[in-house]
């Protein structure tokens, strides 16, 4: 019975929420740094200043007064994404793919009247999607066109790569593939699949779908493992770089592969979820403890990435068995 699994999970090194919060978040993430990560606009500014590629920023809506000018700004763009600056887990994000008469078409295929979009932005400004309900800013940014490598295993939407970085060392990674259930969103809570990625090779492993292990995409039926992620070294580099960007010891980096611009930083997350472990069929704890032991000895970014590619690979685990 699953009730008796505690010992087995501990042996497998699975990280639980309490342990993550008590021993890693509270210890390595200074509270003063959270706003840098919770506010996507601040993250964008930091990334641009450090020379990291991000989706282009079209404009910011800060006050209710800006709402009047918003329709004109939206009409001037072909496609865009509306994002609340402090939203979490994809809340409040609207991906607009085009305009039809007085309405806008979204990535999921729905048609939204212009008034509804403005109302949505107004809600977001009032703090509907922000953590704690604080008044928020909303920004428009360029839509990412996904790299075709994912075409067979994603249902619309844009897959993103999440890499968990601990003290600047990438420890675990997964790619999140949208499904019909998730309505084109790469959000595990809403039904997307998470596919584990081998840190050394950048090749996908098995996947998790609603806490169950799967090997095929539920909508396309194609196998999800064995896919090589392009520009893998660059992705690892951006991930490791984020440690210097924010100073947070335990964070997750969300990256996308744009067909024109290549790897781009989408956002950072200071409280990453734990489903990545199911996607990789491995517990986070052994890797985190290994990094903790060697963190002082590791120097620059290159050394940290080398450490990760050496130790955190399914192949190494296999030979250990």
């Amino acid at each position, binding site marked *: 019975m*699953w*009730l008796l*699994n*505690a010992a*087995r*999970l*501990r*042996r*497998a*090194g*699975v990280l*639980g*929420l*309490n*342990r993550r*919060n*008590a*021993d890693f978040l509270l210890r390595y993430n200074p509270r003063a740094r959270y706003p840098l990560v919770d506010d996507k606009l601040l993250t964008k500014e930091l990334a641009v200043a450090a020379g990291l590629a991000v989706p282009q920023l079209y404009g910011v809506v800060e006050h209710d007064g800006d709402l009047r000018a918003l329709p004109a700004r939206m009409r001037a763009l072909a496609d865009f994404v509306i994002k609340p600056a402090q939203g979490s887990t994809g*809340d409040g994000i609207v991906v607009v793919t085009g305009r039809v008469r007085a309405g806008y078409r979204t990535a999921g295929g729905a048609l939204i009247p212009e*008034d*509804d979009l403005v*109302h949505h932005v*107004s*809600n977001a400004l*009032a*703090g*509907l999607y922000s953590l704690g309900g604080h008044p928020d800013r909303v920004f428009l940014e360029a839509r990412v066109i996904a790299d075709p490598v994912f075409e067979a295993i994603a249902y619309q939407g844009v897959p993103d790569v999440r890499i968990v970085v601990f003290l600047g060392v990438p420890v675990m990674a997964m790619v999140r593939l949208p499904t019909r259930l998730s309505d084109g969103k790469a959000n595990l*809570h*809403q039904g997307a699949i998470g596919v584990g990625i081998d840190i050394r090779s950048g090749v996908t492993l098995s996947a*998790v779908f609603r*806490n*169950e*292990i799967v090997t095929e995409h539920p909508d396309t039926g194609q196998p999800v493992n064995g896919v090589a992620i392009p520009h893998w070294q660059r992705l690892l580099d951006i991930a490791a770089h984020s440690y210097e960007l924010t100073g947070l010891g335990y964070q997750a980096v969300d990256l996308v592969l744009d067909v024109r611009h290549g790897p781009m930083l989408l956002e950072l997350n200071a409280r990453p979820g*734990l489903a990545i*472990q*199911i996607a990789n*069929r*491995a*517990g986070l704890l052994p890797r985190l403890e290994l990094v903790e032991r060697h963190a002082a000895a590791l120097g620059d970014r290159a050394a940290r990435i080398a450490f990760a590619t050496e130790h955190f690979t399914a192949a190494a685990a296999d030979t250990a068995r």
Partner: protein
Amino acid sequence: MKNLHLYVLSGVLAATAAGVFGYKVLVLGFPLQPAQTAELWDFEARVRFDALGRPVKLTLQIPSRGSGYVIADEGFFSGRYGLSTRYVAGNRQAVWSVRSARGRQTLIYRSVVQVTGTRRDTSAPAPPPMPEFAESELEIAKAFLERARAHSADSDTLVSYVLDALRNETDSDLSMLLADRREPQERLDLVTKILALGGVHAEVLNGLPLSAPGYNVQPVAWLEVVDDDGALQRYDPASGDRATEVPFLVLWRGVNALAMLDGGYGLNVTLALERSARPAIASLLYAPESERHWVVDYALFNLPVTTQAAFRILLTIPLGVLVLVVMRNVIGFKTFGTFMPVLIALAFRGTDLVAGVLFLVLIVSLGLLVRFYLEHLKLILVPRLASVLIVVVLLMAMVTMVCYKLGIGVGLSVSLFPMVVMTMVIERMAIVWEERGAAEALQQGAGSIVVAAIAYTVMNVPFLVHLVFVFPELLLLALGGTLLLGRYSGYRLLELRRFKALAGDK
């Protein structure tokens, strides 16, 4: 060691709690169990009215001697008023007066009543004067008395017969006599007159039976009769039986008003009766100032009775919060809001668990329907919340009315349900519903209700309620517990199920 500071702090809190607790129990003799047989009762009469800037005189009937108890202690809260006590026609009254007063006035009388055992009191007063009956009534009364006498053998059965006739309204003569007498004390007064006609001395007692505690209780009218042996017997007209086991706190005898006000309006008297937690240490409490231990002096049961009642509830809240922390961080339940379940548990106090849950589910479901409709109107955040709140209040009124018409009594106590809590639940639930889907919303809703139900159960265990009220230092133990849970890094129970796919592998 990793968490040394925390363990030391928790240890200090636990030691303090244990120390004070141990001292109170072992040395001072504070009672561990809620008093099984209440030997002491706290009685409070709270008088409120509005004054007009004129001289004010307020007269209040206060407890006087009765059989089976003594007034152990008494206190008056008079403010600027002058106070005097007097006897009028065998009744004890407190008279408060002041030259001029304006605005809301509050005066309080408190006493501690010690039950001394229901000894047979043979010091019967002198026989009563012949009752005054109007001529028209006298013949009817005599006729009724004849019938009653024929159906009884002694004073006890006679009284029982008369009280039965009074309650069931079976006798037409009696009903005729009762036509003008509406109030219970007036009706019993008629009974005393009829009994006196038959040579049985009886008197109406107005007051409270010392059997059930209550806040905002109403005085009842009982009958006190001198039986054939010359002993005093009390009868409860609601049952017609002799009430020998239950002592009766007498506020006044005969037909009178509980309080009379001159120079003000809006008179309101609230009576409260509470079992005293003091039985085992009564001697300590009533010791002269110099001998009284300061810990006893600062104990919570020196507060006014109504404040005590509020504190009894307040002090159980940490218990509910402790339950909440365990349910969320150790078991892994998901709930709306951080403390919402505890607020809901408090709301259940008025309705009890099952009715409360049903009512909550009903109102939240209806509220959600309205909330989804409001989505179409595209209202901004704050006015939308306010609209939902108003709708919730109206829904509560409607549901209460429907319950009343259907004869479901419990529906009438739901007015105490906090509507703000329900509005927030509806709003949060609607947002989670739209953002994460129905499953997540219902999961969190179910989690909130389960946690609230468990918290409510724990917060109402009589032994625990007694324990935290008499030994508030035990809450330091709860504090130490929540501090320790703050660094609990083990798996949550429900996580074991979530990660079960990983348990088989290595």
